[in-house]
C-alpha cells in the first residue's frame, strides 16, 4: 500500500514541476533556518565544555537586595561565596571564579587584548577543562599567591606564536609576569561564566578579595556528590539565603539562588522578571511566525494541486474508497514531499553552518549538526508535513463524487 502511495506521490511531483519546486523551496529553506537556530541554541546552552558534570552542578551568579524604591543586583563577592557556601553540607566542592575582565599586553610592539579571570583551586576540580599541556594550579599555589597562570590555546598562539610547549615560560599581563602552568582548549565567549584567555589564582587579584561587602565580581558553582543530591543542595542554599541578613537598612529583602545552568545563563538580573520566560517566549514567537508563512503557502499550493486531481479522486471515491483512506493517502504523500524537502534542507544547513563557521562571527563558536539538531529537524519536518497536509486532505475528502468526475 505504502509503496503505491509512494509511486503516486512521485508521479504527482513530476507532473507539475513548478509547484514541486515551490513546495520544496519553502520546506527546505524553512528547515535550514530552524536547523541553524537549533544548532546555535544547542551550542550555546547545550555545550557542556568545560562544565561537563552539569547534572551535578548548581550555579550562583547573582545577589539581589531590594528596598522600597531601590535595589542592587549583581555578581557576588569572594567573601560572601566562600563564607556562606562554606557553611553548607551537601556541596562536595565549590568553584569560585570572577567574571572575565579585559587588559592589554604588548609583545614586539604589537597589542594583544587579554581577558583574565580569577579562580580558586577547586575551580579546576569542579570544571573539566581539557588541558593540552601542563596542569592546573593547586591549593598550595593559591594560598601562596604564586604568580602562576593557565592560558587558553588562543592566547598561547597570539603571545608565543606557533611554538612547542610553553609550560614554565612567562607571560606578561597587566604589567605582571606570570609563570604558565598549563594550556587549555578555548571556550567560546558565549559561555561567559567560564570564558577567559588567562586564568589566575584569586589571591593575586589586585582588588581586595577579603572585602566583606556582599557584591563583588565573583560567581560560584556548587558540585553535589551525586545527581540525587542536587535538589537537596538547592534547598539548602535557599534556606541559607533566608537567614542571611541584608547588608544595610536601605534594603528589606535579599535574594540569591543556586540555579541550574540554563536558568542562571538567561538570568535577567532582576528578581521580578524571569529570563527563562522571556527567552522561551521570544524563541517561540519567532519560530511560530517563521513557520506560519511557509505552512500557509504550502496549504495554498496543496489545495491547488488537489483540485487538479479531482478526477482521480472522483474515480477512487466512485470505486468505494472512504474519506479516511483518501485523507490518509494524501497525508502520506505530503509527508514524502516534506521528507524530501527535509533531506535538501539538511544539505543546505550543512552548507550554511559551514559558511557561518568560516565567517567566524563569534570566535571559537563552532556550530555543528548533531543528533539533537537532526532529531529536531526531523520532528519539524513531520509537524510541517502534517500541518500543511491535513486541511487540504480534509477539503479533498469532502468533494462530491459527481462534481469531481464532471469537473473535467
Amino acid at each position, binding site marked *: 500500500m505504502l509503496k503505491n502511495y509512494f509511486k503516486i506521490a512521485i508521479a504527482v511531483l513530476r507532473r507539475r514541476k513548478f509547484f514541486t*519546486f515551490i513546495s520544496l523551496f519553502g520546506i527546505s529553506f524553512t528547515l535550514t533556518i530552524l536547523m541553524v537556530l537549533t544548532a546555535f541554541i544547542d551550542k550555546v546552552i547545550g555545550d557542556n565544555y568545560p562544565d561537563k558534570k552539569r547534572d551535578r552542578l548548581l550555579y550562583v551568579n547573582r545577589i539581589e537586595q531590594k528596598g522600597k524604591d531601590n535595589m542592587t543586583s549583581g555578581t557576588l563577592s569572594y567573601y560572601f561565596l566562600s563564607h556562606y557556601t562554606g557553611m553548607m553540607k551537601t556541596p562536595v566542592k565549590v568553584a569560585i571564579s570572577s567574571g572575565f*575582565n579585559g587588559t592589554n599586553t604588548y609583545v614586539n610592539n604589537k597589542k594583544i587584548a587579554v581577558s583574565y579571570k580569577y579562580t580558586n583551586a577547586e575551580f579546576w576540580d569542579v570544571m573539566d577543562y581539557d588541558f593540552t599541556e601542563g596542569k592546573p594550579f593547586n591549593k598550595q599555589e593559591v594560598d601562596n599567591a604564586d604568580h602562576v597562570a593557565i592560558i587558553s590555546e588562543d592566547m598561547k598562539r597570539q603571545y608565543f606564536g606557533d611554538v612547542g610547549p610553553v609550560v614554565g615560560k612567562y607571560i606578561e599581563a597587566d604589567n605582571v609576569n606570570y609563570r604558565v602552568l598549563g594550556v587549555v582548549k578555548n571556550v567560546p565567549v558565549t559561555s561567559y561564566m567560564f570564558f577567559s584567555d588567562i586564568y589566575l589564582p584569586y589571591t593575586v587579584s589586585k582588588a581586595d578579595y577579603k572585602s566583606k561587602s556582599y557584591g563583588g565580581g565573583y560567581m560560584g558553582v556548587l558540585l553535589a556528590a551525586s545527581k540525587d543530591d542536587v535538589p537537596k543542595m538547592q534547598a539548602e542554599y535557599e534556606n541559607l539565603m533566608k537567614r542571611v541578613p541584608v547588608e544595610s537598612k536601605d534594603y528589606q529583602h535579599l535574594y540569591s539562588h543556586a540555579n541550574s545552568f540554563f536558568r542562571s545563563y538567561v538570568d535577567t538580573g532582576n528578581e521580578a522578571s524571569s529570563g527563562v520566560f522571556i527567552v522561551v517566549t521570544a524563541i517561540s514567537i519567532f519560530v511560530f511566525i517563521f513557520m506560519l*508563512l511557509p505552512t500557509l503557502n504550502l496549504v495554498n499550493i496543496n489545495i491547488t494541486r488537489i483540485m*487538479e486531481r479531482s478526477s482521480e479522486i472522483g474515480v477512487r471515491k466512485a470505486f468505494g474508497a472512504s474519506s479516511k483512506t483518501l485523507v490518509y493517502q494524501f497525508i502520506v504523500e505530503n509527508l514524502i514531499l516534506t521528507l524530501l524537502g527535509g533531506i535538501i534542507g539538511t544539505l543546505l544547513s550543512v552548507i550554511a553552518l559551514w559558511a557561518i563557521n568560516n565567517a567566524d562571527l563569534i570566535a571559537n563558536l563552532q556550530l555543528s549538526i548533531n543528533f539533537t539538531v537532526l532529531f529536531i529537524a526531523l520532528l519539524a519536518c513531520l509537524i510541517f508535513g502534517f500541518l500543511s497536509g491535513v486541511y487540504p486532505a480534509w477539503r479533498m475528502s469532502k468533494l462530491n463524487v459527481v462534481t469531481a468526475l464532471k469537473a473535467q
Partner: protein
Amino acid sequence: MFKHLFKLIWNKKKQNFLLMTEMLVSFMVLFAVFTLMVYYYDNYKKPMGFKYQDVWVININNSYQTKNTDSLDLYYETLRKIIKSLPQVKDLSFVSGNVPFSNQINQGGLTFKGKHIDHLNNFTAEDSYKETMDLDVLEGRWYNKSDAVSKYKLVVIDADLKEATFGKEQAVGKLLGNDDDKKKMKVIGVIQTIKRNGDYVKAGPGLYFRADTGSFRWLSKILVKVSPGADAAFEGKLYKTMAGYMKNSNIEIEHLTNKLKDTNYFAVIPMIVLSIVSCFLIINVALGLFGVLWYNINKRKGEIGLRRAIGATGNSVSSQLVMESMILATLSLIIGSFFAIQFPLLNVFDLSAHIYIIGMLLSIIFVYLLVLVCSLYPGRQAAAIYPAVALHEE
C-alpha cells in the same frame, strides 16, 4: 465594477481567505523589518556629535582610594600631568564609566513641566572634555574653570534632552529639574547628542555634570585624545607609564574606533540575519502567490473566454484579474494596518511614531508591488486567451 469583483471574491471565499492570511502575515513580517530599517536609517543620518578617531579609553579597575579628598586629588592630578607630558597625547579628560560605545549605563528620570523623561543618561566629565572629544556645541558653552563657584548647580544638556524639555525654545539660562525639586539646575549649554550606542541605535537624552573635587573616587575612565600617528609602540609606553604609577590597578586601553565597530556589529548582525530570513520568506510567498493565481486563471478559461467573446478587450480581462488580487491585498492590508497602528498608539517599543508610519507605508507599498508582480503575468496570459479556443474546451 467593484461590486462585481467583490462578488467574485466572495464566491471563492475559502481559497481567498487563505491567500489573504498569507498576505497579512507577510505584511506583518515586512512591517517589522521595515520599521527596524527605518529606525536604523533615522539614527544613521544624525551626526555623531563628536570626533571618535584617535580617542582612546583607559579603563581603570580597582583604582586608588583614600578617605582624604586632598590626597585623592593630588594623586590623580599627578597622573594627569604624567599622561599629558607624553609626546603624542593632545588632551585628556577623566569621565564617568558610561563613555561612548560602552555597555555601561547610568540612567535616571526627570519630570519636567508634567512630562516624564525616561532613560535619561547622566554623564560626568571635566572642562577638557570638549577639546578631547571635539564636541559640537549648539548653544551656550561647555564648562570652564569659572563654573567651580556658582550660585546654581550648572548643567549642560544634549540636543535630545533639549528637544524633550524646551522644544524649539532657547534652553541656555533656563532652569531644569524635577517639578517638585527646590534646587533646580541652570542650563549653560546645549551640545549635539553623542551617539553613544553607535551609528544605528538611538542614544537617548543626556545630562552632563561637571566633575568636582572628590569625583575622582568614581570616575573610572579616562578619555585620551592622541595625535593621528600614535601606534602600538606608543600605546605600550602609555600603558607602562600608567601601570608603573598605579601599581594596584588593572588597566586596559581601548580605541573608540574599534569600540564603534563592535557596537555597530551587534546592531547590524541581527538586521542582516532578519533581512536574509525575510527575503527568503518573501520569495517563498511570491512563488506561492504566483503559482496559485496562475492555476486559478487556467481554471477560469471558460469564464474568460465568454467575456472575450462578448467584446471585452484583452486589457480589460487582465486588469480585472489584477484588480481582483489587488482587492484581496487591500483587504488584508486594512486588517494588517489595524494591528500595525497599535504599535505607535500604545507606544510599544519607545520609538517615535513617524518611524512606525514610514515602516508601515513601505510595507504596504511592498505588498502591493509583490501582488502586482505576481498577478501581472497570469493576467497577461489570461488576456492572450482566444475565445474560440477557450469556449471550445468546455
